[in-house]
């Protein structure tokens, strides 16, 4: 970003590179009114990546279908922000504003998803195992990077202390992964897999 200082970088990009300073600035700044724009954009991008990797073209049918199917991910994120903000937050920032600022921190995930879409498009179905290897090795980057951003979000935007921010990160992980595990448990997929170790 410092190589191209004159480009109008988005707040998403600025938060990704300097989360503490930029969250400090933004939480003191004027609120946007389009609070759900970023969660909806994130869902839309999930649908876009699904369409690009499935059909090799962004058909509206697949984009919207994917956005609807994977809309549960931003929904769970919103639930986790609401819960951890209410339990540990000290800044008194309105929930909708907190949601907007939280989704600013998704750039590592969205850029990684676009990278996966590009890699998948240059990988033949016969070499899908190679694609999975790349995914499994590279996913550590957005996981760790988004945790760092999340940490600064809880500290700077929601005004949490160190124990509160740690607890909020754990709540976030528990809500998202817990929901997915509950789904697999109740659909009868989890128990046999645990028993078999596959």
């Amino acid at each position: 970003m410092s190589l191209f200082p004159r480009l109008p970088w988005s707040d998403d990009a600025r938060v990704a590179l300097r989360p503490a300073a930029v969250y400090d600035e933004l939480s003191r700044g004027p609120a946007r009114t389009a609070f759900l724009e970023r969660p909806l954009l994130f869902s839309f991008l999930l649908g876009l990546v699904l369409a690009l990797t499935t059909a090799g073209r962004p058909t509206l049918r697949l984009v919207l279908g994917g956005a609807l199917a994977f809309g549960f991910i931003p929904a769970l994120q919103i639930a986790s922000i609401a819960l951890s903000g209410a339990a540990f937050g000290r800044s008194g920032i309105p929930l909708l504003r907190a949601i907007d600022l939280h989704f600013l921190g998704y750039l590592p995930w969205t850029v990684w998803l676009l990278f996966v879409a590009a890699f998948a498009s240059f990988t033949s179905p016969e070499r899908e195992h190679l694609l999975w290897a790349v995914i499994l090795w590279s996913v550590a980057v957005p996981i760790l990077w988004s945790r760092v951003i999340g940490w600064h979000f809880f500290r700077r935007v929601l005004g949490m202390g160190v124990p509160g921010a740690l607890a909020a990160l754990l709540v976030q992980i528990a809500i998202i992964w817990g929901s997915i595990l509950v789904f697999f448990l109740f659909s009868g997929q989890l128990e046999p897999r645990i028993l078999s170790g596959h």
Partner: protein
Amino acid sequence: MISLRLASAALLGAGIAAGTIADVIPVRRPLLRGGYVVLEADLHAHSFLGDGALWPWDLAFEARRKGLDAIAITNHNQVLAARIGRGLSRRIGGPLVLVGEEITAPAYHLIAVGIEETVGWRGTAAQAIEEVHAQGGAAIAAHPTRSYQGAYDAPALRVLDGAEVAHPFAYSAGVQELRDFFSRLELARARPAPIGSSDYHVFSSLGLCRTYVFAREAGERALVEALRQGQTVAYDLGGIPHGDPELIRLLGTPPAPPADPPSIAVLARLGWICSWFGALGLLLFRGAGDRSISTPTAKTNLRA
């Protein structure tokens, strides 16, 4: 000056428009060979409401794009998505969607197709197969590599209808383990059905491995009946055909999966490029009218 964000949004919109126009799915007629209708089928695909990425109806659309006449939606230990997919596929004019399930037990994974209710996974493989048959379905050993073979004892092999000889696992694990299991099955019972399946979850591998089913007509019951009678041909990933030699002869060289006409292929590629760069630009650049605290105007406002 047009902002980079606005230009990115326009690029994304143009890409999706191009991609949607390029969403052309060819009309397909099944092959006719020796009095049979040869149905190209992928009998192992997962959809959303399970651990697959596509909605059941999108799976049906994509199956048509891949030149498949039939698919089985086989989520782990549930048939809900498959039933939805079958109902909707009938409304959109196909392909045939068989209600199925990947019976996922600790010791085995078994594909059940042509069933209506979920089959319990706590019994032995032989018991699960009997339950599939009681519902009028066919039972196929899923990706029977070495680690999934143990549960198929002699009683199970005697009633098993078929086994996957072509499966994407073989690209990484090798084809021999699937061949060896199928040879065991051929010794245990007469005329088992060789099956090629993609075990589709996500990306573009639907129909990568497929089964040529020689059915009396293009219908769900006829397809299941053909599976039960072993009237299938599948090419393993080493290019070796499996199945009745007469059916292999009738099939001849398997037809290539359909490709887009050149104009549609160009439009699809253009849609891909525009939407990808548009999405990236939308994430990276701020709009001309967006207020950010770091802009001089916003800083001035704050001081005021």
